């Protein structure tokens, strides 16, 4: 006769860099249901718009997350620029695109390392994080910071990257690409990795779409949805195709992120080739009045920044829907029927960022 018990998972757990609690309703070794609780790191950042100047708030938007910090800042800027109908200089849009793709690469490499660690594949974990340093060095060389760059502002960017430096970055990616191909080959073809991840935590394309999944979780279930296709920043002038896998399991999510590293490299090369000369910012006067929903593709998926303004220097409302928040319902569905030992791997497979989700 089977036994039902509830096992608490988190908020502290080796696979969780940040706190989330799950009550796992188990029948023997199988998960029947999982119920999440959050609130451990709720900072009330959205409320701060009522007290901070909308221009200064970029710095707070960037601090929603330490990993996708640049894209948070950029998306906030897009929302305010949308309200004020600002035509940001094209060079600034290209620079935003370059930093967005560097952010994606370092986030995916961080996650690939954590995924390898969760499987007990320590040498692979170290390879991923070793290669991530190359990307962080480029971030530091161009913005002064490895994470939380502070380089985006309303109306443009705060610092330029010279054409020569951009070319150096693009050339440096040649060697990094070779190293990445060697590492990604292990993630895609190694029997240990395949055995651990294939068929685990599967979401069909219908489940992923109906439950509102975002980013690599959605694309790993066969749906070619990538917000970069909407053409924000300079993406409308660059050529790329979303990486899509169809099996919908942890293996597919890993493959999507691994292959997206090469899409990012290609986009940075294209941007370095096409970036126009010119100004990197514009003068912004007055205060915004109106509302705007801005979307971007973060490493973890689609992020939505909603801004409402009333013509004063303080905003009325700033609301962020992060990809992790959207991926909670698909995660709960993917966990049904799992073996207990698979739970950490499946939780990690959505690349959870709880700091983002709670804001």
């Amino acid at each position: 006769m089977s036994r039902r018990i509830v096992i608490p998972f988190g908020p502290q757990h080796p696979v969780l860099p940040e706190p989330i609690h799950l009550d796992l309703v188990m029948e023997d070794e199988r998960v029947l249901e999982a119920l999440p609780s959050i609130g451990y790191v709720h900072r009330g950042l959205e409320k701060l718009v009522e007290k901070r100047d909308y221009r200064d708030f970029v710095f707070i938007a960037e601090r929603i997350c330490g990993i996708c910090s640049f894209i948070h800042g950029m998306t906030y800027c897009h929302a305010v620029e949308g309200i004020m109908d600002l035509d940001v200089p094209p060079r600034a849009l290209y620079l935003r695109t370059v930093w967005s793709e560097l952010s994606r690469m370092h986030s995916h490499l961080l996650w690939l390392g954590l995924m390898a660690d969760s499987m007990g594949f320590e040498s692979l974990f170290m390879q991923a994080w070793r290669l991530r340093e190359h990307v962080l060095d480029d971030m530091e060389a161009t913005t002064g910071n490895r994470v939380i760059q502070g380089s985006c502002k309303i109306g443009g960017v705060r610092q330029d990257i010279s054409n020569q430096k951009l070319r150096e970055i693009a050339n440096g990616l040649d060697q990094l690409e070779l190293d990445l191909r060697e590492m990604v080959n292990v993630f895609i073809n190694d029997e240990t990795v395949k055995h651990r991840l294939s068929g685990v935590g599967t979401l069909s394309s219908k489940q992923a779409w109906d439950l509102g999944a975002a980013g690599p979780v959605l694309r790993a279930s066969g749906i070619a949805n990538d917000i970069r296709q909407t053409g924000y920043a300079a993406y409308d002038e660059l050529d790329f195709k979303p990486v899509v896998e169809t099996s919908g399991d942890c293996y597919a999510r890993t493959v999507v992120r691994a292959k997206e590293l090469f899409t990012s490299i290609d986009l940075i090369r294209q941007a370095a080739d096409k970036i126009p000369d010119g100004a990197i910012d514009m003068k912004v006067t007055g205060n915004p009045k109106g509302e705007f929903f801005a979307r971007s593709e973060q490493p973890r998926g689609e992020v939505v920044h909603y801004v409402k303004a009333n013509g004063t220097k303080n905003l009325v409302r700033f609301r962020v829907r992060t990809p992790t928040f959207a991926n909670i319902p698909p995660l709960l569905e993917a966990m049904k029927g799992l073996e207990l030992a698979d739970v950490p791997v499946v939780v990690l497979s959505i690349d959870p960022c709880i700091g983002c989700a709670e804001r």
Partner: protein
Amino acid sequence: MKREAQVIEPIQVSDLLVRMSERKEVGDRMVAISCAAVGGEYEITYSFEDADHRFVHYRITVPPGASIPSVSPVYWGAFVFENEIHDLYGIDVKGINVDYNGHFFVTKVPRPYAISPPPETPPAGKQGGED
């Protein structure tokens, strides 16, 4: 750079479930439910993406203390947004499929984003300094 069109359609609370069912039927993905306290009322916006990446929004406006129906029977994953709205704004959402009863976002200050009720006028003869 392309900017997405901002299509926000105001709807009645009584039409909410019908409109959500229509979105589900045509295969739209629910992206977010957002709430804002504006002018003493709550604006609740339901955002969707269709198969062509179009981003569209439906908005209801309710006064403090009002109840709204949950759309989680239509979009199962809506429960995270509805519990968030309940916990941060104190809006009563009826019929959430996974209802945390105020324990989803555990905050030090209950309902931190709720519209504050106006201060009560002291009754005549009870002004300070008369005791």
